[in-house]
């Protein structure tokens, strides 16, 4: 068996492990054999033992420490290793085929809880939606109100012009109209400006919130 065959066989035997683990292991042994040198290649492969043995070593350690990190004493370590390397029966292999990372289990549990308490979660979902609707509508309503003030200012101004046959009253009404119009204009511009800041920020916050359960902690 040459180097290429050894590595291909190892890669095949590590199927079912997370891709990252598999690639790291294959990369390590590719490096290892390249560093052993072409002239020592056969010896190095013989000393490593069969690809089966190497794959079992990797699996035993990966799944062993994944499940119980606490018991890490040598007796247990040796027992586990010798057991999984000698007894590579089909059942054992099948049990190890599915890498259940704790992240997946966590997500599953969260989903199960959501389903189990669905009346509560439905209520919560409706509440969240309502709050979101209020928040989303708040700023447009504010903008419309400001625009209305501006409009009424314009109206009062026109009224003042019409009242000019009594100059004193006309002047006052025109002044009030101008004031209202300017105040409304400032408020409208301000609210629109605020929207361009608040809405993108809200959207980003929401997207982050949705992503959190999936990209939370790297396992």
């Amino acid at each position, binding site marked *: 068996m040459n180097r290429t065959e050894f590595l291909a066989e190892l890669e095949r035997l590590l199927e079912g492990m997370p891709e990252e683990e598999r690639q790291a292991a294959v990369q*390590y042994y590719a490096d290892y054999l*390249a560093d052993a040198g072409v002239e020592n290649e056969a010896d190095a492969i013989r000393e490593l033992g069969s690809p089966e043995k190497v794959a079992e070593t*990797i699996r035993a350690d990966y799944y062993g420490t994944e499940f119980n990190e606490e018991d*890490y004493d040598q007796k247990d370590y040796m027992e586990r290793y010798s057991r999984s390397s000698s007894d590579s029966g089909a059942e054992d292999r099948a049990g190890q085929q599915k890498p259940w990372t704790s992240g997946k289990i966590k997500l599953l549990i969260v989903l199960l809880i959501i389903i189990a308490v669905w009346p509560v979660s439905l209520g919560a979902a409706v509440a969240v939606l309502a709050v979101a609707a209020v928040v989303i509508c708040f700023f447009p309503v504010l903008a419309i109100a400001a625009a209305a003030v501006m409009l009424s200012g314009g109206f009062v101004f026109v009224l003042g012009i019409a009242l000019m046959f009594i100059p004193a009253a006309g002047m006052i009404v025109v002044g009030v109209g101008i004031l209202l119009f300017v105040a409304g204009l400032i408020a409208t511009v301000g609210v629109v400006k605020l929207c361009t800041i608040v809405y993108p920020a809200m959207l980003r916050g929401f997207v982050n919130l949705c992503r959190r359960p999936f990209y939370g902690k790297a396992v």
Partner: protein
Amino acid sequence: MVFNTGAALLDAIVLAAVSREDEGTYGYKITQDVRRVIDVSESTLYPVLRRLQKDECLEVYDRQFDGRNRRYYKVTSRGMAQLNLYKSEWKSYTHKINAIFEGGAGV
């Protein structure tokens, strides 16, 4: 050898072997260095390196060598702290064993 090398001792030896190189060192060389000291099979060391890397005791980087990327291992500050712990534990352990073997004071 008559005495078994436990997982903790193996971790300690690997950390010590890697820490001897400031620039870091690579899998084949680590294997050779460790095998000069204890009798372990060549395939034992990869899982140890991988685990130490996951525990952030070792960090890896790739460097060009001979027209390919070679993966180097380097001890992190955390790994250094762990190694120092192992060293002091080893010192007190061997001290006690020596004491009972040689019948000196302290037992």
